């Protein structure tokens, strides 16, 4: 299918963008940064086209659903939102040094979608319970939240890297020098966590509404629901620790990493446990 062919190209494009961002960070020449941005933009555009084709194809096949209905499509959408969010940030902040932390994640997700065993890339009809507009809004909001948490995670890693590097390295090593100041990384990380928290809240609420219509109860403590609650609570702790207890910097970075771990388990890990959401496999 044409859309999966485009998507496998997108995987390589993101990898190339990552390599260019890395060149920029190591060589310190803005040329590479510009090339990386253009490459990432091209990848995003191609991926958008592929998603649109996929959407249209599902209508041609007579199923007619947004490309958000199985594990493969969710991975692709996840990578798409991460790159979109990152490019928006790059544009707003006029800073390219975050790309080298974010693009490899998008690349890995795309690669996982195409090579992991048991990930089915076909467009398939939906079972009746999934034929709901709430499903679309649920998946949309959840993955916007996941993307924000992922960027917060990348910033957390960046922060720890900057903190561990000696002040000597900060002057001599181009890579470290090009990173934003610790203060700015911390601010950005917090903004991303808040954005993710709000989208995750919306995701949990729309999911509950959908469950209310499809299964007759807005909450049934199924492992995926429970883990999304755990993730939500971890970020709630992160918010309070900062706002009220004044946590900054390293502790926030660790919270961002822990929260990301919970989010990843919500998304992937719970498939190891029996679940209502098992259609995602």
């Amino acid at each position, binding site marked *: 299918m044409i859309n999966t062919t485009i998507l496998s190209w997108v995987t390589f494009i993101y990898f190339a963008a990552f390599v260019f961002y890395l060149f920029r960070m190591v060589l310190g020449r803005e040329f590479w940064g510009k090339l990386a941005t253009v490459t990432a933009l091209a990848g995003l555009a191609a991926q958008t086209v592929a998603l649109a084709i996929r959407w249209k194809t599902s209508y041609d096949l007579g199923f007619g659903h947004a490309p958000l209905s199985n594990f493969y499509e969710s991975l692709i959408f996840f990578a798409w939102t991460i790159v979109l969010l990152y490019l928006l940030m790059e544009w707003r902040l006029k800073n390219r040094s975050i790309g080298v932390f974010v693009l490899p994640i998008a690349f890995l997700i795309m690669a996982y979608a195409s090579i992991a065993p048991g990930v089915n890339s076909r467009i398939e*009809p939906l*079972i*009746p*319970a999934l*034929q*709901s507009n709430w499903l679309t809004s649920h998946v949309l909001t959840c993955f916007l939240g996941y993307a924000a948490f992922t960027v917060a995670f990348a910033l957390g890693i960046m922060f720890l890297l900057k903190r561990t590097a000696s002040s000597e390295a900060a002057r001599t090593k181009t890579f470290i020098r090009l990173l934003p100041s610790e203060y700015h990384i911390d*601010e950005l990380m917090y903004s991303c966590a*808040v954005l993710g928290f*709000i989208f995750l*809240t*919306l995701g949990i*609420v729309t999911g*509950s*509404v959908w469950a*209310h*219509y*499809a*299964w*007759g*109860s*807005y*909450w049934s*403590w199924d*492992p995926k629901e*429970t*883990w999304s*609650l*755990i993730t939500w*609570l*971890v970020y*709630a*702790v992160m918010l*309070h*620790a900062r706002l*009220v*207890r004044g946590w900054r910097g390293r502790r926030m970075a660790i919270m961002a990493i822990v929260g990301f771990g919970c989010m990843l388990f919500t998304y992937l890990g*719970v498939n190891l*446990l029996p679940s209502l959401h098992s259609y995602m496999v």
Partner: protein
Amino acid sequence: MSKKKSVIWSFFSSVKLAIVLIALIAFFALIGTLVPQREAAAQLAEKMSPALFSFLHKMQIFDLYHSLWFFLLSGLLAVNLVICSLDRLPLAWRRFQRKQPPYSEEAFRNLPEENQFEASAGLEEAAKAAEALLQKRYRNAKREESGDAVYLAAQKGRFSLFGVYIVHLSLLVLIAGAIVGSVFGIEGYVNITEGETVNAIQLRGENRSWPLSFSVRCDKFTVELYESGMPKTFQSDLVFLKDGRKAFEGKLRVNHPLEFEGFRFYQASYGPAPGGKATLALVRDGGRRDVMNVAQGYAFDLPGKEGTFQVLRVEENLMKMGPAVKVAVTSPRREETVFWVFQQIDEIKKISPDIFEQVPVFNPGLFRPYTFSLLGLEEKYYTGLQVNRDPGTPLVAAAALLLIGGLMLILFSYARTVRIRLVSRSGQTLIAAAGQSYKNASGLQKEVQYLLAELKNNLETSK
């Protein structure tokens, strides 16, 4: 309020406690996903010593989400939220009501260089332009004069001071809704075969049924399949009867529940119902052919009065050889002949040609001079319904709306005051702007910069 608060009050108003409680709830929730819960816990019983199992059972480890622990933690969190909010609400109220007089030297102290500029316009002209700008952007602007200076101020977003309280209130409503639901709610299910009526449901997780004050009949069940054989939609035509009379009817589809007397009905599953109808044909040697619809237990006279026949069983798929009907023919002398009638008898004979010799009861012509054939089974389904009553749902829905509304208020708005000071200085006017807020300092600084740029632009173009 006295300055010295009681120990209990400060314990419950502390955010440290909140963090500990939230972390504990997250931890318990995590344990619940690792330890099998409710029905699934039964398998664990075989692997554990009975003493340990019963201890863990008593500790409600196998039903954590409905356990006393969970109630206790939610209760503590609720108390924490109430006390913490009561503790801080007066502060928010004071901030909300605080007068922000335009004249304030304090606000302009230590002003960064980029927050001021010199304009060639006169004082009054510049002040008019600045006031118009504030009016346009904030719909409020106050003015004060002091000596040779004009002070202007505008406020925005004061209501967002209450965003946090709305979010926390929503959590209280959520906890209340969840508790109402788990105390007064009913979760059950029922299977109804097409054409049948039920007046009780089976409770989930308990070996008990719950009588309904009305009855439900399923008139028809329909399923539509994709080409692959996967179900596309399915629905039940339901009739709700009160005192034997039809009170309400509706089509129940997946994702589109029906509600009657506080109970919500959800289309959950379906399956083939045993005891469907079959269409039988019987041919008298070289003579007439009769076709009739039969079901288990039906009895008929043979057309030539050689006896009567009765349908003993209707099978969907007998010994993997397809649909079959078991028939007994009784002659007037009370001799009984029993045999099976397969729908796919021709295919069966092709695979094993001497089947009638080996298994005489598989011969549909065992009672001469008749040969029976099975033309088909009428598919009959049962519909599987999830039936719930949860009086907590409206509370939970309200909580969700409050939560989202409160978060939006926090995210998209913040309380701020912006001030512009204009000082006449040898024919020129020195214009300075400052902002004041409780959070989002960098956003506010951007806004102040924008105001200054806009004002500069307005003053230049008006010339």
